[in-house]
């Protein structure tokens, strides 16, 4: 029932800026795909091209059975004929209409009967837990409530695809957390293919079935959250995902199963490649010991930053600085000597030239 989306070689330019650069992307039916990337990387533009609000310069877009855009064939369906709904960053509720009117606008266009409309309004308001708000005007509601109404407005006309452009970015931290929960349930229940734009990696990691990470109009990696986190496809993704940030160190493969980082070696899976590499290891994949241990590399605790649930330790050895994460409250004191061991299974190697992941 759910609808796949296929994007082929999509390009959109604004003058000299290539906002979307030859993007090809397949979105499985029922997926929750998040476009993630720094501000200005082209997420919104890509989403708007899918919605039909922006006319691309080249490529093809298929939504379900419909070819909605093709430059070669000269086709571009208007947004209203693409069976999709869009939630805007600033909600875009019509200020001169009540909640009821905002929701029934699309239904009137679909020529639903009055009873059906009433029913749909009731249902969709219930879905976002805003029952009884029919007669309010947008300005009479808080940001969080407007956000829910914007969702209800989309749900009411039952589009096959949900598009959302940073819908939570204008909410405060707590509301954002609540809405994440709600949005994920909404997707779970409706099963509609969803394309979600955000620059917040926590949002992306927690809600998505797939994450497509973008940089300068190009998709860097399109994978499950798990894969994106544990096997970042290149240095950009590795660096972008994860908080605290991943440790990246230049080194060279000195023998099977070992990378020479100058002052010390780290154990890695066996690669058949040799040469200059960049080693990537997440802070939680480094273990700390307060006493010397086997294979332990001596460091000094430069700074210790507890946050309750875990503790971030900045460790130094000469010029080399590593970020380490320990679960719980750490007993390590600043300037204390510590010994680090590395989980070789969790280490990824990147080609120094291309920055791409080296597959072992």
């Amino acid at each position, binding site marked *: 029932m759910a609808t796949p989306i296929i994007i082929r070689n999509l390009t959109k330019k604004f003058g000299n800026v290539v906002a979307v650069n030859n993007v090809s992307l397949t979105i499985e039916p029922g997926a929750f795909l998040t476009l993630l990337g720094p501000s200005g990387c082209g997420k919104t533009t890509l989403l708007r091209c899918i919605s039909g*609000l922006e006319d691309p310069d080249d490529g093809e877009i298929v939504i379900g059975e419909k070819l909605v855009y093709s*430059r070669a064939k000269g086709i571009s369906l208007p947004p209203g*004929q693409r069976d999709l*709904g*869009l939630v805007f960053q600033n909600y*875009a509720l*019509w200020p001169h209409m009540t909640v009821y009117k905002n929701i029934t606008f*699309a239904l009137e*266009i679909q020529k639903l009967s009055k009873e059906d409309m009433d029913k749909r309004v009731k249902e969709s308001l219930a879905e976002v837990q805003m029952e009884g708000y029919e007669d309010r005007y947008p300005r009479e509601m808080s940001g969080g409530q407007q956000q829910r109404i914007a969702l209800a407005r989309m749900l009411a*006309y039952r589009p096959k695809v949900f598009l959302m452009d940073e819908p939570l970015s204008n909410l405060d931290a707590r509301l954002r957390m609540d809405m994440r929960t709600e949005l994920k349930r909404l997707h779970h229940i409706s099963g509609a293919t969803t394309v979600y734009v955000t620059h917040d990696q926590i949002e992306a990691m927690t809600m998505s079935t797939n994450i497509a990470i973008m940089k300068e109009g190009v998709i860097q990696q399109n994978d499950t959250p798990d894969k994106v986190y544990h096997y970042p496809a290149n240095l950009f993704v590795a660096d972008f995902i994860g908080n605290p940030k991943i440790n990246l160190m230049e080194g060279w493969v000195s023998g099977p199963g070992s990378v020479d980082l100058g002052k010390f070696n780290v154990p890695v899976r066996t690669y058949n490649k040799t040469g200059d590499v960049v080693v990537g290891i997440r802070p939680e994949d480094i273990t700390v010991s307060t006493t010397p241990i086997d294979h332990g590399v001596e460091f000094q605790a430069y700074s210790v930053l507890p946050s309750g649930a875990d503790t971030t330790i900045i460790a130094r050895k000469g010029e080399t600085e590593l970020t380490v994460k320990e679960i719980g409250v750490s007993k390590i004191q600043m300037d204390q000597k510590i010994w680090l061991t590395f989980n070789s299974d969790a280490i990824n190697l990147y080609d120094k030239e291309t920055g791409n992941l080296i597959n072992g």
Partner: protein
Amino acid sequence: MAVFGKTDQRSQKLFAYGRRFFRWLTTPHVFLSLIMLVIMFYMVIIPLYRMIMTTITVQDIDLRVIKDAEVGDLTPYHWVRMLFGQIAKIMTYEPLVHSLTISLGATALALTIGGLMAWLVVRTDIPGREVIHTLATIPYIMPSWTIAMAWTVMFKNRTSGGTPGILEFITGAPTPDWLAYGPIPIIVSSGLHYYTFFFLFVSAALLSIDSSLEEAGELAGAGRWVIMRKITFPLVLPAIASGFIMTFSKTMGTFGGPNVLGVPVRYYTLSTMLRSNTGIGNYGDAFVLAIVLIMFAMVTIMLNQKMVGTRKSYETIGGRGFMAQKTKLRNWKGFMIVLVIIFQFIIAVLPLVLLIWSTLMLRTGNYSPSNLTLAHWIGQSDLSINNGEPGVLLNPKIYKGAWNSIRLSLWTAFFTALLGVILGYSIVKGRGTRLSKIVEQLAFIPYVIPGIAFGAVYISMFTKPFGPIPPLYGTFALLVVVSVAKHIPYSARSGVSAMLQVGKELEEAAAIAGATPWQRFKRIIFPLTSTGFVSGFLMTFITTMRELSLIILLVTPSTQVLASMTMRYIENGNEQQANAVIIILIFLVLLGNFIISRFRGGSLKKGLGM
């Protein structure tokens, strides 16, 4: 087969291209932009072109002078004659100097008064701010030559006016000529009328200045004068530039004041000279003057914008900043408020009192109570007064003129509002495209063409049929066309700002929901912009009611409006009737203001961006 496949591919490509082109063409803002281009081309570009052609071709009237020529032949005759001939001094150069004198003088006066008042109202603790602001809008509802007419009532003298004015009556001594007629009265009367542009622009700019900028200067140890010069002044400079452009181009092409106060002593400006040439059908020469006028207005405006360094300086500055520290007037408070009130009284109330008084005098110049009468208002036709014209309230010609004024203003306001919606939509939706830029720039052109020259442009356009358009000269429709065309820059500007207030997402959300362009317009855009358009409608109504320079060359006896009737009465020596007509005109403007502002909360203040 291969060849066949190739052509097939090519035709497919062509087909795709065709569809893309069709889609582009049917995008609402593209489609509307193109329509606007055609309309503006017809209304602005072609008339200008035709006017220029008239000056370099032989006209009927020239056949007596130019031998062996046919109408339509190319000739430098008009330009040579008007710029280098014996008559050049009287016909061109003197009027040009006069026009420049008057517009620069009036602009300087208006700037001084308007700037000072803005500073007083915004940056000092003067009381009664609201009242001052409201009174400052009054000049907008009065015809620009109202003060000029009141001036003659007050200052005319026996030497050139026939009968003595009030001053001469009081002092007993003849009022000196320089005070009665000529440049000084024209400059003062127009400066007093136009100060309000500067007042509104500068006070808006002062209001929008973030006081922390000035405080930063103060903390850096700058004195008050240095702060004023180095921080405040540069920040209000764009507003001053807007006021300058507006006042300069208006006074450059103004007809009323110079006609009332200049022509009686043969002090001609380009506008009055232009009128006397078109009056005798000498279009070739007249249009040379019109072009000279346009050139000077354009050059000044361009220089001005270059100096200020911002191309958009004609846009009023909006937005409310933080409240700046107010200068304490202390002991001067009472004095200042009295001064401001007296000043506003002189500008807004006194002229009306003088005009009404003059309409109550049977014979001009006789100030005895026995001379008071209502004859000019409700008297029957009497050959011994007013060449036999009945009192204005019994005069069918006046009713005809009033009706013409009203319907001209309503039609103009309607079409201007319509164009405003369309221009605003096409410019804003197309932002960043070349088409949108062209539309915006084309829409700006009428702004730099002084009123009377713009009217002149239309004489040449519509004396003969042109394309699908029948000859419009002498028709009422021509007055509507020229008024709408002259308003295009204002309608574009208010349309753009109204459209910008509606976030583009609001329309996009409707598009996603499947609404057609028309449904989007009807249900989203129109309801959200209508307040702005009612204000725009009101502004246009008011400015058209009291517009004179623009239409003076185009009215005929059957299309007379109240504004042009005042001039005819003045020229025929029926001073009281002229003044009565002005009073009626102002009354109708107030009435219109009252009625229109009932709808959807539009108001004059909003229209002025206050």
